[in-house]
């Protein structure tokens, strides 16, 4: 099966006055049709940067430094902006931005804001656009009257549903979801996850699901991609990461141990001391080594490559080669 999206050796750096921040540093992965890939990691490890890079809109001062992003076999990085707008962004890949539901403008109705997307990206007549909006509101479980409401009249869950509908208008193949449930309550979060599962089947979508919550990732992602300091440190299937043998990389292990579990009473929750490194001048060797309790000499000297440790399971740690 051909992949829908293939990211090869992608590098995207933010060029600040203090130097280049290596936010995306040599990332490789593929997204298959109908698959959900989860991106996890602490804040500042490059999850959102990777999302916006794939949409071909790195936030300034970010620029591509190397690599390719193949969407249906075509590298989108060298394409002119007009071409991207016409054929890629929202047509093939759309995104639900982090906090998008709180970025709806308070002065326009929901309907007008949804219409804006259609005006920008399609040539539909007004009445066609209106019926399309009603149709998609139905898919996300909202009544059609909502188009006349203003954002402050809706609950967080309803706003998020409207934002998700807007991302689906032009029948994209891939939807990037950046922390779509972070600001929502647990019950609403579970409802949104159910909705996403339903929509994925209905429209045969592929998702990139970005969150810092490993517990949530277990509910929705077929494969999990763990990022640390601009790099992928582990990539495995849902069963490989959450199964009985546990994850392979010490970072994933620590992250999972730090996730509070409702039905496991523990005396003390685990945490990862320290903070992710400065990406202007990342540590020599493995980037996690300063915070890793399993690090040995080699970890501080040489960077471990991402290797396949079992079929479909990649990890970047010197421990795998030590034994």
């Amino acid at each position: 099966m051909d992949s829908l999206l293939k990211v090869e050796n992608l590098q995207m750096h933010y060029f600040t006055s203090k130097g280049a921040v290596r936010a995306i540093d040599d990332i490789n992965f593929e997204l298959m049709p109908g698959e959900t890939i989860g991106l996890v990691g602490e804040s500042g490890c490059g999850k959102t940067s990777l999302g916006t890079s794939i949409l071909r809109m790195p936030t300034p001062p970010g620029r591509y430094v190397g690599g390719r992003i193949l969407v249906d076999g075509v590298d989108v990085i060298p394409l002119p902006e007009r071409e991207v707008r016409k054929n890629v962004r929202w047509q093939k890949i759309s995104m639900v931005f982090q906090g998008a539901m709180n970025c709806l403008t308070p002065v326009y109705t929901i309907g007008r804001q949804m219409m804006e997307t259609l005006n920008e990206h399609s040539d539909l007549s007004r009445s066609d656009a209106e019926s399309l909006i009603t149709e998609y509101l139905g898919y996300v479980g909202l009544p059609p009257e909502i188009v006349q409401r203003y954002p402050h009249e809706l609950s967080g869950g309803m706003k998020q549903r409207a934002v998700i509908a807007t991302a689906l208008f032009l029948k994209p193949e891939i939807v990037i979801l950046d922390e779509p449930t972070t600001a929502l309550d647990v019950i609403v979060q579970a409802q949104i996850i159910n909705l996403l599962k339903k929509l994925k089947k209905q429209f045969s979508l592929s998702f990139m699901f970005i969150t810092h919550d490993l517990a949530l990732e277990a509910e929705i992602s077929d494969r999990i991609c763990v990022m640390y300091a601009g790099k992928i440190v582990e990539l495995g299937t849902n069963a490989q990461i959450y199964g009985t043998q546990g994850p392979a990389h010490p970072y994933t292990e620590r992250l999972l141990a730090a996730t509070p579990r409702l039905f496991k009473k523990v005396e003390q929750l685990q945490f990862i001391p320290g903070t992710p490194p400065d990406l202007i001048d990342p540590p020599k060797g493995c980037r996690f080594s300063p915070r890793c309790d399993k690090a040995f000499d080699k970890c501080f000297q040489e960077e471990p490559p991402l290797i396949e440790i079992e079929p479909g399971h990649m990890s970047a740690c010197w421990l795998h080669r030590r034994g």
Partner: protein
Amino acid sequence: MTDTILSIKNLKKYFEPHQNFAQSITGGGQKKPIKAVDDISFDIRRGEIFGLIGESGSGKTTTGKLVMKLIEPTSGQMFFDGEDVTHLGKEKLKEYRRKVQMIFQDPYASMNPRFKIRDVLEEPLIIHKVKGSIEERTKMIVQALEEVKLIPPDEFMGRWPHMLSGGQRQRVATARTLILNPMMLVADEPVSMIDLSTRAEILHMMKEVQKELGLSYLYITHDLSTARYFTDRIAVMYLGRIVEIGRADDIIDNPLHPYTQALIEAVPEPASGKLDIVKELPIYGEIPSPANIPQGCRFHTRCPYATEACKREPEPELSLDSAEHYHACRRAYEVQAEKKRAG
């Protein structure tokens, strides 16, 4: 000296909606008050961590504000350390605020960006006119920083807030409360904006401080999994009412109210094999507006187990199940039996 540090009795807070000019003259368009907190009672014991759980709109933050005395209650009473603190004069209020301190949710917005950490920590001493020379004050600041494990304190004192991570800021926020030797802390979602990897670290630090200084906490959150780890007792709030209250373990292992059950089922667990399951939650829709609280049991509109009686009969009061475990559901045991039969 009593066992209870804070006692809340039948506390209510109704917000009156705004009327426009025409309405105020004609008396027309009478809007209903927003019943944010609608008759709640609970006690917090000395040295206890008490958790208040609920969705947004459940009234948990309003309860926190009432306890902090940032807003005045509509009716009901509050006792702190055996004293009636429902209504306080200016002097008494200042004294109360010194004993009851607050940690806010957003560590990025709760500090003046133009204050160095030293100034952030000195401000409460100035406001509360804590006498002392510069040396004495510095000593207090150093001590507070050491308590929250910001070491070395001398180095942190000279930093600006923007130089600190979210976790470090929340430590400073904790130090700022400790500097006044409070008896109780109100923490409204203190870790919800902090990265998962450091969340546990902050909660652990707060727990250490609590044990060491014998403080009491009111911990307000929507996150049941941290509440289980962090709190001794939990009260679950729904639309301004407490629907279940008890020891944290009892509430989570043996929830009796259908709302608590739904909250627990909605929490994701990091385990494999859940991809193809669309988990049907035992709850309908979203929380209604507190201006329009349903008649009868206020949860009946969302409850899959509701009967005619739940709609018509007056609202159930909290009733005792086992030691310290109270619930407000008239069908609690029937539902439990039904669930058992269904397997």
